[in-house]
Structure formats: structure tokens, C-alpha cells
């Protein structure tokens, strides 16, 4: 009897330990019926831009810390908080001279989220803002938040503190905007994620490029298919074993999007965003030629559309560097090199991208800058690791899974 009970326990114990934790997506809450914005007029981007600044948190500091950064991000207005890499993303509109902001708040490290609704009444700075008058320290930006889909009832009050300084600092969003493990509403390396990157605080993205069996460059991080990235029982093993048609037919990304091609991704970057940097993280030497061809095509398209856009071929290992040199791309396709400074010089890379785990760069940074090269450090996600790099002040950008956190730390630090 004892033995049977032991067997029963062992079985139950095994069953309990057998399953893995799954990453369920935390969806963006939406206002029932579309909220007040459904009947609002658009606000001009230059009017929204006037709200940019560092604000003190008068009500809501328990949830969002003592300071936040407000910034126009494309057509949206975002607020970046230091706590749990939190952010707000607002769609904006006006009803007469009252400015309406509706959207959501979210901890990007953690996943808690809820509805958010702010207003600037006409008689209380609404009209001056629409007339192009900058906010003053007496300006209060107020609203309410809720938890999940619950109606917003918790007061949040922000008081304008100081403007954001002009900056060319580059905040690159990893995998197009974020990882699947952060349970964002779009899959990593998807077209939807690329369109979210700016509202998360990024002005650039890093995307991963691989070739299918028939030579089509697609966005995909891992070498092999797995339930981490795709749905589809018959997508197993190396991505390079499958043709493009097979991948698009047999599997989807985790949030049911199609696996995008590099061409589709660059099309979205140029036509649907105002991102200024794209880092193509090339995963195999065979992909360099086709990636470089698309790089040149889309940089020309961006230029023709009056857009500033720098696209870099990312070289992360010796094999890629050798192929890049062999294809004679040194003078034709801008590169970003993750290896040593000697390798950077050998391929005349425009950007040196050292891993943050090598520590602050010291005189190496000065050497690279004196050669007119930029420096992007990767992949920084934690405040305590970010601050030493910001303190030294000798880098041009950071690649991160949490652009909201970098945006907050950078603008508040300055």
C-alpha cells in the first residue's frame, strides 16, 4: 500500500514538473465604442511636439515613479516612466480646443496594463497649445488610468518640469520592437511590431535576417523553428530547410502573423514609420548579398521620399566579415560591426557595436569617434547596467528590448 502510494506520488510529482510555462500575450486594452476620439479631429504633429518634456509626477508616483518623459512618437504621444520600463501610448485628437488623449499604459517589464485617458481642456492650456505656445512649469497634464479593461478612475497628474534637449541619441528596438517573452501584442520580428517600435520610444530597429531554402531573405531570429516563435507542427528544425512558400503555408508567427520578408519589412519602415535607423542582423553569410541589394534599394526610396534612413548590414562574426569583404561590399553597403576595432576598420564599418558585457569603452570610444564612426552598445535592459554607459557619455546609441526604459533614463539623466 505504501509503495503504491509512493508510486502515485512520484507520478503526480512528475506530471507537475513536466509542463513548461507558456508566454501568454497581454493584449492592449481598448475603449468600448472607441472612446471620445471617435468624434475627434486630428492634432497636428508640431502641436503635439510642444508637449515634449520631462514632467514631475504629482499623482501616481507609486505606480510610475517621480518623473516621466513625455514625447511625441510619430502620430502618437508616449510617456516613458522609469518603473518596470513603463510607458503610455496615446492616440490623440481634439474636440474644438480640448485635446483628448486615449490609449493604454503598460509595464513592458512585467506586462501589467490598463486603459489611460488624459485631457487638456480648452480653457486650461488647450487653446495656447493649439496656437503653438510652449507649456510652462505651471502646466499640468492630467488624466486617469484603469487596470486591464476597467474604466479609468485612478488620477494621474503630471507637472511640466523642463524641455527635452535636442538629441541624436539612437534608441534601437531589438527584434523590431521587443521579444515574444515580453508578451507584447505583436510577435517579434513582425510587421506589426516594427510599427509599434516608435511609440515604445525607439528611433531605430534591429531585425534578424535569414535566408529560406530558395534564397528569400526573411525576418526570423532563431536558426530553428520552435514553439517559442511559431505555430505550426510541421515547421521543425532549421529554417533554411524550408522554402518560402512552405514557411508561409505551414506556419505563422506566435500572434498568427505571416513570417515577413525583409522586403516587406523595409517597405513598412519607409512608408509607415519615421524610424531613422535599421540594423540588419544577418544570420548567415549567404544572406549578405540579397540584404545588401535591399538595403540600397530602400535607402534610395527613403531619400526619394525625403526621409532620413540609415540601414546597416550587421556583421556579428568572422564568417560574415569574410563574406562581406569577398562580395566587395566595403564601399557600397554600409556596415555595422560587432567585433574588434580592427575588424571595424577592415570593413570600414560606419558603426561599431560592442556587447555591453565588455564594460564601458573608455579611450576606445574616442578612437572610433575620431574616425567618424558611431557606437551602438547592445543589448541593455537593466537600469543599473545602463547608467555606467550613459554616465561616460561616449556612445551614440543603445540596442534594447525596452526602448521606453532607455528613453526615460536618457532624457531624465540629461
Amino acid at each position, binding site marked *: 500500500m505504501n*509503495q*503504491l502510494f509512493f*508510486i502515485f506520488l*512520484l*507520478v503526480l510529482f*512528475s*506530471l507537475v514538473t*513536466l*509542463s*513548461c510555462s507558456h508566454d501568454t500575450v497581454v493584449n492592449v486594452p481598448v475603449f468600448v465604442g472607441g472612446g471620445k476620439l471617435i468624434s475627434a479631429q486630428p492634432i497636428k504633429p508640431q502641436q503635439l511636439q510642444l508637449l515634449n518634456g520631462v514632467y514631475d509626477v504629482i499623482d501616481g508616483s507609486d505606480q510610475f515613479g517621480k518623473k516621466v518623459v513625455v514625447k511625441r512618437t510619430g502620430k502618437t504621444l508616449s510617456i516613458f516612466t522609469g518603473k518596470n520600463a513603463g510607458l503610455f501610448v496615446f492616440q490623440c485628437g481634439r474636440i474644438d480646443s480640448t485635446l483628448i488623449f486615449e490609449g493604454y499604459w503598460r509595464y513592458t517589464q512585467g506586462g501589467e496594463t490598463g486603459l489611460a485617458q488624459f485631457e487638456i481642456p480648452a480653457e486650461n492650456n488647450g487653446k495656447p497649445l493649439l496656437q503653438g505656445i510652449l507649456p510652462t512649469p505651471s502646466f499640468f497634464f492630467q488624466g486617469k488610468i484603469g487596470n486591464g479593461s476597467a474604466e479609468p478612475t485612478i488620477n494621474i497628474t503630471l507637472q511640466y518640469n523642463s524641455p527635452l534637449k535636442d538629441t541624436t541619441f539612437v534608441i534601437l528596438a531589438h527584434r523590431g520592437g521587443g521579444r515574444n517573452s515580453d508578451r507584447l501584442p505583436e510577435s517579434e520580428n513582425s510587421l506589426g511590431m516594427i510599427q509599434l517600435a516608435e511609440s515604445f520610444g525607439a528611433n531605430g530597429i534591429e531585425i534578424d535576417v535569414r535566408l529560406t*531554402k*530558395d534564397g528569400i531573405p526573411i525576418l526570423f531570429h532563431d536558426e*530553428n523553428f*520552435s*514553439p517559442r516563435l511559431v*505555430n*505550426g*507542427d*510541421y*515547421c*521543425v*528544425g*532549421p529554417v533554411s*530547410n*524550408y*522554402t518560402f*512558400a*512552405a514557411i*508561409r*503555408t*505551414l*506556419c*505563422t508567427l506566435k500572434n498568427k502573423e505571416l513570417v515577413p520578408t525583409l522586403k516587406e519589412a523595409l517597405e513598412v519602415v519607409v512608408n509607415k514609420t519615421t524610424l531613422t535607423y535599421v540594423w540588419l542582423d544577418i544570420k548567415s553569410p549567404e544572406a549578405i548579398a540579397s540584404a545588401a541589394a535591399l538595403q540600397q534599394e530602400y535607402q534610395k526610396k527613403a531619400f526619394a521620399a525625403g526621409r532620413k534612413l540609415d540601414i546597416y548590414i550587421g556583421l556579428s562574426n568572422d564568417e560574415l566579415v569574410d563574406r562581406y569583404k569577398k562580395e566587395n561590399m566595403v564601399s557600397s553597403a554600409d556596415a555595422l560591426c560587432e567585433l574588434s576595432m580592427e575588424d571595424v576598420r577592415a570593413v570600414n564599418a560606419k558603426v561599431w557595436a560592442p556587447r555591453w558585457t565588455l564594460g564601458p569603452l573608455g579611450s576606445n570610444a574616442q578612437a572610433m569617434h575620431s574616425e567618424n564612426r558611431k557606437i551602438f552598445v547592445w543589448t541593455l535592459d537593466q537600469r543599473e547596467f545602463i547608467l555606467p554607459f550613459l554616465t561616460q557619455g561616449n556612445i551614440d546609441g543603445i540596442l534594447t528590448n525596452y526602448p521606453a526604459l532607455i528613453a526615460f533614463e536618457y532624457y531624465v539623466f540629461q
Partner: protein
Amino acid sequence: MLASAQDQSVDRTTFRLVGEIGGGYSYKLTPPKIILGNSTRDGITGAFRLKWGSSNLLGVGVETGYIPISTMAMNSLASEFGSVDVSASLSAIPVLAIFTIQRLGIQMHTGIGYYRMTAKATVMGKTMESSEWNMGYMLSFGFTRPLISDLFIGTELKWNNIVEQRISILSLQVRFLYFLYGK
């Protein structure tokens, strides 16, 4: 007391090497996330084990075999590439370290190891095959009865869980056991 207890333990303990071969019906428990055309989730499965131990102790061993997981086929699927014919299949070969306990005639096996997953697909006339090792587990309950001499026959209900692919298969098997060493 302790010495006599150890003596009694030695009396009960008889180490054996046992070879086991089995086959039966398997069924994939987890439904497909993408459903295209006609699909199957069952098939004929087989297993082979080599085990070491005594019936009063935890035994150890290795297991391998073949598990058909699923198939699908669809003609004239409407897609961005036009009308396409698609077919695919998925199978696994387990290579597991197993542990076994026997009480009151019931044998429990549990195992941990890897499954060699193989997918074959034909899309738009192009055939591709792809394989990968994925970690997983196994748990089974069964019983055996003597047949002749050192040969036993038994049945088993087995659960294979290929954790890294989130695929579970249940199978019912008939098996034959033979003592290769020890009686």
C-alpha cells in the same frame, strides 16, 4: 537489526538485464494549431528497451522506438501563391534514459531524454525534410505475465511528452520482455 535488514534486502535483490520490444497504437493528444485539409493524429508505434535492475529496486535503462505523430494533406489550397497542393508528416524517434519500478505486478516507467523529430513537407511540388532533437519525457504504466521460460508478455499505456515542441502522444502497446541476464 540493521545488519539483518541488509541481509533481507540482499535476499530479495536479484539484478537482471531485460530486453523489451513492443508495438501498438498511438494518438496525438495536442490538437494542431494550424488546420489545413485532411489530417491524421494517429498511427502504429513501436518501442525497444534495455533495462537493468532488480524488481524490488528502481531499475535504469534506455528506450528508443518510432512514434508517428501526424500527417496532413490538402489539394488546391487558396494562398498568396495561388492554388497550391500541400502535404506534410511528422514523426519522432525517442532516445530516453528510463527508470522503472514494479509493485504488485504493475510496472511504472518514466524517462527523460531527446526525441529526433522529423518533418517532411511537399509544397508547390517541392519536397523538403527537416529534423531536430527536442527534449522530452515519458511516463507509462503496464503489467506483464509470464509466457514461456524467460519470455514475458504484457501491455502498457504510455504517455510521451515532447516538451520543447509542446506535443503529447498517448499510446497503447503490447510488449514482449526477455531476460538477457539473470533470472
